[in-house]
Each structure stands twice: as structure tokens, then as C-alpha cells.
């Protein structure tokens, strides 16, 4: 599947703000009140469409892909990197589309922003997302934030080189 990124439109932002996720992923539910921040030019929100032109997700690059706890700890100043945030349409999650989706966003960002590296911040409970990020070559840097009831910290910081494509390893 080929995915295409383009700067977000108001119509897309409105649609995305209405997406609802199941179970623990409901923390990613949006709201019409956040449409304007999705349209904020400095957050670099982009819509992702599939070959049929259907809206399948979004990426943001830079500041809105960072979390306050990480800022406070100065984690984002340690190394120069482009922070990547993303979301897939709820009905498409959990079907193994994630790696191709993330790769398309990284490819776009590499061409558009020529970053020194890619970095992302993911909630530690979201193992499903972490597996996808590992699959496309991201490595864990550190966990940070408040300690959850499970004993682990809230957030995981991950990084990967901007240029190098990880070798393709067929799944068994």
C-alpha cells in the first residue's frame, strides 16, 4: 500500500478530531476543540491518504510530537532530531499496516526536512505502537515521566538515524 502525505486541511482536521479508539487507546480520542491546533502551521500536521484517496491517518513533526515531561527534563535538547507524532484511523489499527504507514511518513520527512535523526515519544503502555517503531528501526533511548501503577514510567523516548533504511527482515 502506498501512502501519500500532504499538509492537513480543515476538513481532514475535523474528521480526525472525531476519531474514537477502543479500550486503553481511547486516550488518543480527539475533540472538535483541537481542530485549530491541528491546523497550527508550526506543528506541521499532515494528512495521510491511501491509493484510493481515503484519509487513513496523520503525522505531525516537531513541537506537538513532544510531551511536557520530556521538555522539562531537557530530553529534546540532548540531540538534534526531528520529533515525529502520528495516528492511524481507528478501524485500520491492529491490522499490521503500521510499519508501511510509519515508513511513508519517515520517507516524506526525510525528503522534506532533511533531519539529522528521527525521534519519537510513545506511551509505555502502547506496546503495539512500540513494536511497530522497533520494526522500522527505532531504538529505545530511555523511559521517563511519572511511575505508573505497573512500576514502569509513562513515556519511552525512541530514536533512529534519518538516512539509513533498516534491512528488511521477513516475518516468520
Amino acid at each position, binding site marked *: 500500500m502506498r501512502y501519500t502525505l500532504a499538509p492537513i486541511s480543515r476538513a481532514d482536521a475535523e474528521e480526525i*478530531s472525531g476519531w*474514537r479508539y477502543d479500550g486503553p487507546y*481511547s*486516550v*488518543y*480520542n*480527539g*475533540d*472538535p*476543540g*483541537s481542530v485549530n*491546533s491541528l491546523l*497550527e502551521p508550526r506543528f506541521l500536521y499532515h494528512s495521510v491518504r491511501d491509493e484510493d484517496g481515503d484519509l487513513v491517518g496523520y503525522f505531525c513533526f516537531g513541537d*506537538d510530537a513532544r*510531551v*511536557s*515531561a520530556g521538555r*522539562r527534563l531537557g530530553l529534546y535538547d540532548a540531540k538534534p532530531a526531528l520529533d515525529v507524532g502520528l495516528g492511524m484511523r481507528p478501524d485500520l489499527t491492529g491490522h499490521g499496516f503500521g510499519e508501511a504507514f510509519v515508513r511513508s511518513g519517515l520517507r516524506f520527512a526525510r525528503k522534506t526536512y532533511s533531519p539529522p535523526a528521527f525521534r519519537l515519544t510513545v*506511551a509505555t503502555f502502547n506496546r503495539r505502537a512500540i513494536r511497530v517503531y522497533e520494526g522500522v528501526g527505532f531504538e529505545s533511548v530511555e523511559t521517563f515521566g*511519572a511511575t505508573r501503577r505497573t512500576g514502569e514510567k*509513562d513515556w519511552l523516548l525512541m530514536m533512529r538515524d534519518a538516512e539509513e533504511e533498516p534491512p528488511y527482515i521477513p516475518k516468520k
Partner: protein
Amino acid sequence: MKTLEISPDRHTGDLLSTIGETLRAERNERGLTLKQVAEGAHVSVSYLAEIERGEKDPSSRVLESIAGGLDVEVSELLVRIASAMEPAPVVPVTNSLAA
């Protein structure tokens, strides 16, 4: 003659909308987006937005989390909410003790 305009809301004390308005004001003051505060508070953007609109009643635990997301002490947040509800100036403690 000019009449003094008194907002009835202020006096009936719609606690829920005052909590919501205060949270939104605090967030805007810090230049934070719904997403940024919601992530720090471990609540969804939709839930935080509903609380800000006074549509959902946050538990004390949720209020504590949101304070964390705003990076403000929950005690400070409660003082802000209280002063938004009661427009009369608070008598400084020292004065009341001296009286």
C-alpha cells in the same frame, strides 16, 4: 442612570463550568494545546475538552492529573477556581488576624 451589571452565573456558582473555564484559561496562559495537557494528564483530548466545556465532572484524581499536565500544583489550581467563583476580594490573612 448606569446600572451595575451582575452576572448571575457568578453568584449561582456553576462550579462545573467554573472549573472548566479555569482549566482552559490556565492552559491558554501557558500556550499549551489540548493534546499537550491531555498527554501529561493521561486523559484523552476529548475528555479534557469536555471537562473544559463543563460537560464532564472531573473526579479529584482527574483534577490532580490535569494539574500535573498543566504543571501547576493542584492546591494552586483550586485557589484559582475558588477566586473565579467568588468575585469579592479575599481578605488577606494578616488583616483578618489583626482585626
